[in-house]
């Protein structure tokens, strides 16, 4: 009986820990216009580091050219289960908010491009995806675990960072907040 109670407690603790880990490192800056925060925690409030990559379709993608849009920048991998679970939500959000000014960008940290291409087709991803490297990851504070998503406002500042799987509702809240602030 005692064993059962202990096991039940362990299960409850594990579930609670799991829920706590679901969006284990959500960080966000205050409203737009506030003073930029000190660099360190993924440079929240600072201008997102610019980069230029060639996406899976062969188009050059410059982050700076997205100024004026709200950008959801997602670091992910095909073998990462939490990443895969987030992507259908990003596809839906991209469809829903494209005209309002949302641009989702995926940066894959897979070793090889082939599974990324396959996944891109299978999931009918409706936003550009490019391969990332260590240099790009380091410019974003280091990507030592996936998924990691950054929300970038119309002025190009990093406003939120979500490390670990995050509820679609959280992303949608961020998107509507940033789309609403000019």
């Amino acid at each position, binding site marked *: 009986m005692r064993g059962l109670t202990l096991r039940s407690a362990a299960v409850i603790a594990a579930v609670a820990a*799991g829920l706590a880990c679901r969006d284990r490192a959500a960080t966000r800056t205050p409203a737009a216009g506030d003073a930029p925060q000190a660099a360190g925690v993924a440079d929240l409030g600072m201008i997102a580091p610019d980069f230029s990559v060639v996406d899976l379709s062969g188009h050059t993608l410059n982050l700076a050219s997205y100024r004026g849009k709200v950008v959801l920048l997602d670091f992910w*991998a095909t073998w990462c289960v939490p990443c895969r679970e987030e992507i259908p939500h990003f596809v839906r959000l991209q469809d829903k908010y494209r005209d309002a000014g949302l641009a989702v960008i995926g940066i894959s940290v897979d*070793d090889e491009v082939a599974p990324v291409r396959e996944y891109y087709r299978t999931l009918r991803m409706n936003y550009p995806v490019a391969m990332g490297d260590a240099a790009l990851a380091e410019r974003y504070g280091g990507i030592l675990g996936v998924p990691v998503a950054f929300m970038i406002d119309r002025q190009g500042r990093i406003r939120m960072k979500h490390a670990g799987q995050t509820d679609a509702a959280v992303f949608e809240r961020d998107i509507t907040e940033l789309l609403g602030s000019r």
Partner: protein
Amino acid sequence: MRFLHYRTLACLCFALALVPTVLTAQGAQTRISTTEMVKALQLPKAQRPLVIQIGFRVMFQQAHIPGAEYIGPGSDASAIDQLRKRMQPLPRNTFVVLYCGCCPWDRCPNVAPAAQALAAMGFTNAKVLYIPNDFGTDWASKGYPVQKGG
């Protein structure tokens, strides 16, 4: 006869109830905590574990445990083949630590296939580094030693 059925059923229930406990105990035996790992890295060179990263190269290039070797994501069959090739010539009592840290422990697709491959090869002192959240949170940001490149 009916009594026998009840007894069989009771035994079956008891055995099923034991399964999670046994599995947990086995898992715990093969795990090594981050603090134990830090201590293991301070052992004399001959006693230090062979450390193998079975996550992704972009992470390995940014930061990895000093001396670790990169094999590739354990969820990839070709990475498992490479792991087998690397381990084949080694004594089966080699102290080896596998780690990933790509995702939270219970969602990591890479650790289990690699650990199972080593177990199937007969490695008796193979451990898996327990990283609850990810390598950045549970290792690098705690100030534990890291190396770049590779």
